[in-house]
Every structure is written in structure tokens, then in C-alpha cells.
């Protein structure tokens, strides 16, 4: 309902304002089913930034992709063919991004990614109209590998689901990690019971465990790991320690170290204002995804300030300049339009009754991705 009213407000505002220079933004994101939490956060972060900008010439069209690639493609087709949007954004999942982005940018639209960053779109498949405002998929895993080195770990056990993002995660970790591997495991996608894997970890003699298990998989793994009595330290990317799911993990996550390009307590004025206004607007703490949605909208607004969206060259250059105040502090685009940014190390803590993260250091400064060289742009 909130979505409806916000869109209505945006539409009304658009009608009231000058009909000139109106920008149409199509947001394709996951709003139903088990993965809806991520899409809701991206959407809410994005809409918050629009509201704060005070601009009344941006029309939002928001659609639910049900986390199905064919539905996402269908929505993209409609937004491009029937609604004639200028900018597309919103997709959460890599496989949906792979389905939508190449076709959208080939048809001359801009795509701003608030979450997914598959390697294919960072390397050979890069495109001048495709901007990733979150991270390349490997980034947080690479940072975890770098952190493991600095923490003195020399014998890691690593595991991830058996699908491309999981394979990329382990590759990313290994790219920066310099120690030995005591074990490497692929689990089933959607698996909920990790007793067998935890038993193997216990028997492996590792000094650290790196895992990438997004969504419910991570919750299950963390709870079962904590209960197993195995006390080898865990490292993971921020996805399993996000504000939305930490409350469901509870004590099991306390003290676990994770890597993220954003944290609630990052010390910059934009972030402080964002965290406060998000909580005030929606009654919950913002997540990583909300910050990405917020940054994506602000990037777009900063470019609109400089150039009309119909001026393709100008708008593209304005986006590339990334001249906006990011919640993450310094933010710039590399040659393949993917972020160059710090990746931080966070630790899970309890603030009152709420589980959240505290920044404890920087894993890699001004980190770019490994695929930029393959991009022939």
C-alpha cells in the first residue's frame, strides 16, 4: 500500500510540475516470495532518496519480478516498449540481471544496478550504459580473503552453494587469500541442513571458515554452527549479516566478522542522515540493500542535475563522474563502470535488543574488480 501511495504521490507531483524534462524510471525488483525482503529494502532506499531530493519530475514505475528471470524480461520489455522508460534499475539477483541487462542496454536504455554484479557484465559484457552502484559480485569475497591474511589465518575451510555466484565467491576469496585450504565444499542451492558440512569442518583442523550462503541458507548455517560447539572463527560477506536477517539469526551471529562496502556506523554525514531518516520513514534500521538503493537514486539524481536524460552522451558522462554524496564515503567508477570503493570489516554486536554490525577496520582500500581489464569499453 505504501508503494502505491508513493508512486501516486510521485505521479501527482509529476503532473503538477512542468511536464517538460520528465524522467521515467523503471524499477524491476523482487517484492513477493521468499526473497522479497531485499527488493523491499532497495525500493524503500531508492524512494527515500527521491523524496529527499524534492524533485517532482521523476516518474517511478515499480514492478515485482517474483525472482523469476522470464518475468523480469517480460517486465523489462514492457517498460521499454510500452512505457518508454529512460532508466532501468532494481534487480536483486545476478541471474535476473543477466537476463535483463544486456537486452536493455542494447536498446539504448540506462541500467543502474543497485545489487547484482555478475562477472560477465563487468568483463567482456560491459557496456557504457550499464553502471553498477553496488559491487562486482566477487568484491566482498575478495575482501574476506584479504582480511583472513591480515588476521593471520593460514588454513581456511571454504564453502558456498553449487551455482555460479557460489563458485565466484570461492574464487574471489582464493584470489586474495594467501594461506592453505583445509577444505573446499559446494553445498546444494537452497539447502537448509548443514550438519554434514559442519561435521567436516570440525574434522578438518582449519583455523578459519569462509562461507557464502545468502538468505535463509546463511541463517540455518549460522544457527547450526553456533549450536555445534565448533569454535573455529567464521568470515563471510555481509549478505548473511544484513540488518534484515540478523534478528532471525540472533546470538549465533554475535562476534562474527564480515566484509561490506557499507555499515550503519560509517562515519560520514550522508550516512548518518540516511540511517536516521530511513529509520524515521520506515520504522526499521536500514540494511546494506537499502543503502545501495539510496545511493543508486542519488547517483541518478546527481546526473540529472547536470544533464537531461535525453542527452545520452551528457547523461552518461554525468553518471560516470559519480558526483554524489555516497553513504559509503568515497565512491568512484572504474573503467568498466563498476565501483572503486573501500571494503570494510564489520563485527556483529548487540545494541540493546537489536543485533547489528560495528565497523572494525578496512579490508581493502579503493578496491576495484578483477574483470575491468577484460572490458573493451
Amino acid at each position, binding site marked *: 500500500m505504501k508503494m502505491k501511495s508513493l508512486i501516486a504521490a510521485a505521479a501527482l507531483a509529476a503532473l503538477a510540475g512542468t511536464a517538460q524534462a520528465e524522467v521515467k524510471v523503471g524499477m524491476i525488483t523482487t517484492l513477493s516470495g*521468499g526473497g522479497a525482503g531485499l527488493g523491499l529494502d532497495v525500493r524503500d532506499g531508492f524512494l527515500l532518496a527521491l523524496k529527499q531530493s524534492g524533485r517532482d519530475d521523476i516518474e517511478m514505475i515499480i514492478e515485482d519480478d517474483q525472482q523469476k528471470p522470464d518475468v523480469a524480461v517480460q517486465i523489462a520489455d514492457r517498460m521499454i516498449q510500452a512505457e518508454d522508460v529512460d532508466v532501468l534499475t532494481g534487480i536483486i539477483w545476478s541471474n535476473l540481471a543477466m537476463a535483463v541487462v544486456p537486452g536493455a542496454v542494447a536498446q539504448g536504455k540506462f541500467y543502474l544496478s543497485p545489487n547484482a554484479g555478475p562477472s560477465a557484465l563487468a568483463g567482456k559484457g560491459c557496456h557504457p550504459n550499464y553502471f553498477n552502484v553496488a559491487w562486482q559480485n566477487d568484491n566482498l569475497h575478495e575482501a574476506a580473503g584479504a582480511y583472513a591474511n591480515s588476521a593471520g589465518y593460514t588454513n581456511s575451510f571454504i564453502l558456498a552453494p*553449487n551455482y555460479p555466484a557460489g563458485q565466484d565467491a570461492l574464487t574471489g576469496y582464493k584470489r586474495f587469500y594467501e594461506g592453505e585450504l583445509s577444505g573446499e565444499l559446494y553445498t546444494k542451492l537452497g539447502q537448509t541442513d548443514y550438519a554434514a558440512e559442519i561435521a567436516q569442518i570440525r574434522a578438518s583442523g582449519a583455523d578459519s571458515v569462509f562461507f557464502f550462503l545468502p538468505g535463509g541458507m546463511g541463517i540455518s548455517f549460522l544457527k547450526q554452527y553456533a549450536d555445534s560447539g565448533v569454535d573455529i572463527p567464521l568470515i563471510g560477506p555481509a549478505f548473511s549479516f544484513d540488518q534484515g536477517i540478523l534478528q532471525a539469526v540472533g546470538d549465533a551471529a554475535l562476534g562474527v566478522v564480515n566484509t561490506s562496502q557499507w555499515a550503519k556506523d560509517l562515519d560520514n554525514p550522508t550516512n548518518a542522515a540516511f540511517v536516521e531518516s530511513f529509520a524515521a520513514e520506515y520504522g526499521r534500521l536500514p540494511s546494506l540493500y537499502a543503502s545501495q538503493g539510496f545511493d543508486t537514486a542519488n547517483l541518478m539524481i546527481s546526473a540529472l542535475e547536470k544533464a537531461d536524460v535525453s542527452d545520452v552522451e551528457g547523461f552518461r558522462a554525468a553518471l560516470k563522474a559519480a558526483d554524489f554524496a555516497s553513504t559509503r564515503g568515497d565512491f568512484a567508477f572504474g573503467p568498466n563502470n563498476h565501483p572503486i570503493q573501500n571494503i570494510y570489516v564489520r563485527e556483529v554486536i548487540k545494541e540493546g535488543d537489536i543485533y547489528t554490525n560495528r565497523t572494525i577496520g578496512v579490508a581493502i582500500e579503493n578496491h576495484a574488480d578483477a574483470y575491468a581489464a577484460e572490458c573493451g569499453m
Partner: protein
Amino acid sequence: MTFVLLVEQVLNGLQFGVMLFLMAAGLTLIFGVMGLINLAHGSLYMVGAFAAATVAGATGSFLLALAASLGAAALAGALVELTVIRRLYGRDHLDQVLATFALILIFSEGTRWLFGSFPLYLDIPPALSGPVALPFGIDYPRYRLALIGIGLAVAAALFLLISRTRLGIQIRAGEEDREMIAALGVDISKLYTLVFALGAALAGLAGALIGAIQSVQVGMGEPVLILAFVVIVIGGIGSIRGALVGAILVGLTDTLGRALLPVLFGLVMEPAAAMSAGASLASMAIYILMAAVLILRPRGLFGRA
């Protein structure tokens, strides 16, 4: 792979199987007595988990949470039986598949509407948390041992219920001959509601017990539902004994497949490829098991011809 690790994995498989049995028992009971395929059984599992998480959050008591899961799932089951399911008896399986598929959509999105899109919190009670030392130097989570115990106790209670009580006699009569028990003066529609609620309660209990070590979220019931179907098909639909054997077989196949297949592949392939290929085959293992059982015994291990 050491002996200790193997024993631990067998225990893990057993525990997984016993939990699957709780799901499968209700499913097979409902099929055996009413001839109904209930795809929405996974939704009742989810209802149990959500009820338990809510009550545990409000009261802090795990026992109350379990009671709530039984009650809520039984209530939801009875409600669904009275409004929808009873119109499906005697329909062909196709209608049942579709109607209960529709129920999944309604349950899932309804739960998301009530509880939001984020997973809920449900934890192991303090008394059962942490590992316990077993012989051979095995450290094994206390809660998982308790799960094995609870599951086997429920199985025993179910066998007693079916073989020793009046309700059990009616259930068995219902499996044999539907007209017959109506002729015997049993209120058949009440019996059906009762059996459905019982199956739902078992699923709800499984949801709460499993929810404590997994993620309580919308859609959590579907993977389990498919596994439960695999179980009852392997065991022979309608047979409680078959469900128990099938559940343990599936639990062991899945767990040991995940643990052993990558190692086995590692003997003949390079490690990275072995890992990936082993994991792929492991994720298909139970379906291969099911296909193999059905090809050899088209009505499952304990199915009636």
C-alpha cells in the same frame, strides 16, 4: 574420512530422516485414509514454525512454542479441511494437485502479509543447546540428539495410535474400505477432519522443531514438501512404516551423498572438478534413489499392489 566422522554423518542422516518422517507421516496418513495428495502440507509446516517463533518471542518458552505450533497447524489444517479439502475427496489427483497448489500461494503470501518479508527468530532452548560428548570422542549437538528422540517417540506413538486405539481402528478401516466405515456408523466427515488436523499438527511440530535450527521464513515448506513426497513414494503411499523407512533412507542418502560423493569423485578426478561434480550428483542423489526404487518396485517399498 575417519570412522568418527562417518559415525557423525550417519547420526546426521538419521536425524534428518527422522524429521522428514514427521512431515511424511501426516502426508501418507492423509493419502492413505482420504486418498488426497496435499501439496499444501509444506504450508502447514510453515504455519507451525511461524506460530512457534511468535509465541517463543512473546513468552520466551520453547515448550509453549511447541504447543502453539501443534495447535496452530492443527487449527489451520482443520479450517482448510472444512472449507476446501473436503470438496476434493473423490476428485481425481489432478484437481487435488491444482487446488492444493493454489493453497500454497494463498498460505505463503498470506503469511508474508501478516509477518512481513523478513525471516523470524526462533532459537534452541538453552537446556538443549551446545554439544554433548558421545563415545568414540564424538561431539554431537544435544538438540539434534533430542530431535532423533522426539521423532522416534512420535513414530512409536503413531504406531500405537493406529494399532491400539479406537481412532486407529477407524483409520485403518478407512484405508481399507470407505463405504464400510460409513456403514459402521462412524461419522466419516468428522474422522476426515480429525485425520487431516492430526497430519497438519505433525507437520507443524516438524516446522517448529526444525525452525529452531534453520530459518523461519516464507517458502520454507516447499523444499521439505518435495522431500516428504519423495519419502512417501519410496516407502509406498499410505504406509506409515514405509514413511519411516523411506525417511531414514532419504536422510542417509542425502547426508552421506553430500559427505562422500565429492571424496569418491576426488579419487578419479582433480579436486576442483570432483568437488563440483560430486556436489551436483549429491543434489540429485535422492531423486535418483526414488526413480530407482520406483523402477524396481512401482508401488514403493511397502506399497500395496
